[in-house]
């Protein structure tokens, strides 16, 4: 079992009715911290719920240390912190974490001790006896984290653990995640903010439209993306003349254009490019020296839009 990867997705697809939430995902995770990034609806939560054994793949297999994740016994190895803010509000934090510890098979006395220790570590000891409905959003996040951590699982699956937390709290949690990693826990942390995850790890898994768009370190992903063909729409007053310049650029693979109609004074170029960073740098320089009447430049492909948005650190629009 020691040679087995901690988490393994083998050709996993998940359909919800007619919606394909995850599409043929294959990924292996051994240890460390991995940031799961993607826009809303990219499939992050589905991915994590499949990993936590809460969902069953329509096709393919999800394995935790070699055992099917859907099998409840495999959940001994993981702690899951959901993104949903749902609780038994009448319960106190301490009672909630204690019950969760008991569900993990921890005997009564040890469960009390472990609950106390976990709450102390998360700075919740003083407030643990209060009912959860009186907790702030940050405290509720911490309680969710405490219940995932209480049985000291090797794998922690944290779905948007930093959402809705103020910067100070965020900093504290990131520090805690680092400590947990140093202590031997492995973490999969999802977020739709790459900047936040960059503070935590440089290993990311980028999901886009249910597919793994990229996996590896951020540097590797940037390099992969450099050769990723992208289609860019450029709206310009005289497209034919502008295309004559573009065609000489090495990043441009193909150009399609439409002449301006009588109603519209501008035409549109659809430019297929590779190495988008270099292309946009060259375009900026070119326009600085040669004034053209360009009203719009934007990536056409949605997935590209997301990829650029996340990796280049903007909205994706250039």
């Amino acid at each position: 079992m020691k040679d087995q990867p901690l988490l393994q997705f083998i050709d996993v697809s998940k359909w919800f009715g007619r919606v394909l939430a995850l599409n043929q995902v294959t990924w292996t995770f051994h240890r460390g911290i991995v940031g799961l990034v993607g826009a809303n609806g990219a499939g992050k939560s589905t991915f994590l719920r499949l990993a936590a054994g809460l969902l069953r793949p329509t096709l393919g297999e999800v394995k935790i240390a070699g055992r099917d994740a859907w099998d409840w016994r495999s959940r001994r190895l993981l702690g899951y912190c959901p993104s949903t803010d749902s609780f038994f509000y009448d319960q106190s934090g301490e009672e909630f974490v204690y019950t969760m510890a008991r569900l993990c098979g921890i005997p009564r006395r040890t469960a009390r001790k472990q609950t106390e220790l976990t709450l102390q570590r998360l700075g919740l000891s003083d407030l643990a006896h209060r009912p959860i409905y009186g907790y702030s959003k940050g405290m509720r996040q911490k309680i969710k984290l405490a219940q995932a951590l209480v049985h000291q699982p090797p794998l922690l699956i944290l779905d948007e653990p930093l959402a809705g937390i103020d910067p100070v709290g965020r900093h504290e949690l990131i520090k805690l995640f680092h400590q947990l990693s140093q202590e031997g826990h492995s973490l999969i942390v999802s977020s739709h903010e790459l900047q936040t995850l960059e503070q935590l790890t440089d290993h990311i898994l980028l999901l886009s439209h249910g597919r793994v768009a990229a996996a590896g370190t951020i540097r590797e992903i940037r390099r992969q993306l450099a050769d990723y063909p992208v289609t860019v729409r450029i709206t310009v007053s005289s497209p034919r003349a502008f295309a004559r310049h573009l065609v000489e650029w090495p990043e441009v693979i193909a150009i399609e254009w439409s002449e301006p109609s009588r109603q519209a004074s501008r035409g549109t170029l659809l430019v297929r490019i590779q190495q988008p960073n270099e292309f946009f740098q060259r375009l900026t320089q070119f326009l600085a020296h040669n004034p053209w009447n360009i009203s719009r430049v934007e990536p056409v492909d949605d997935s590209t839009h997301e990829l650029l948005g996340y990796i280049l650190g903007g909205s994706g629009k250039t």
Partner: protein
Amino acid sequence: MKGMNTQLSLKYSPWQEKTSRPYTAIAAIGRISLLLICRQRLFWGLLALAMLAFFFFLYGQYLMVWINLQFAHETVRIAGFSVNISQLLRFLDRLALQGTAHTYANFIWFQGYILVILLCFSGSHLFGNDIIYNTMIFYYSKPISPWYYFCGKCLAIIFLIVMTTFIPATILWFEAGLLLDGLTYYTQNYLVLLGIAGYSALIALTLSLLTATTAMIFQRTAPMVLAWMGLFVLLRMMANWLAMTTQEGDWRLLDFWNNLYLCGLWCFGIDHATIRPIPQPHYNNAFLVVFLIITLCILYICKQTRLEIYR
């Protein structure tokens, strides 16, 4: 936000200490479910009502014995007429407050009225809220089989049923022994105690499964109360009317509480001919209906154990 204590160590190492068997989670879920219910004021109100019926039987039994011993042959004057005291108590005959099997069967029958409301409330609170507020995710992400989740919740419901039927009925049985022939009563009626246990166990099993099933279907209290009222009140009235009109006892099979009552009477070993009102269906038919309901509930719960958590 309070600063986290980073000095404390909770270092990861594979869990070295002994873990309990996974099914101990059933008790943990049952415990927390009961605590959740006990925190609701409505629960205490309903429990108080259930206790009222119990105290009625407790003091009624005492009163019957006391009156029979003290004033059995005396008369009182009401509106100028002399009436024997024992005649005045005829209205209590329906309850059979003499420490017989019928006493306990009747007691559990009457507890049913409040039990139905109590279970509607508890079911929606225990199962419905987990679905509505998505708290199921915490249970399902732990290393327990979904069956343990259902068993834990059902355990809490069984506890409520036992608390309102078996325990008070057993107290009544002990009281009857103390009031009547003491040890002779206990030795002659130990099978009645087994009957109480059997009837209560059957109610506990059936109603916990039915509560779990209907709570998962209807989730909220109001629709669940309506559904249960339909099942236990409307169908009962209809069954009664059909049975009286056609003189066919099998129509009473529509009355689920009556079926449980018949099964309970069988546990007490009561002769079918003494059951009132007549006509009544045969014991076997009542058992068949109860078995059918239990099977349907288990099939539904089986389906739910394969549930995926989407939200």
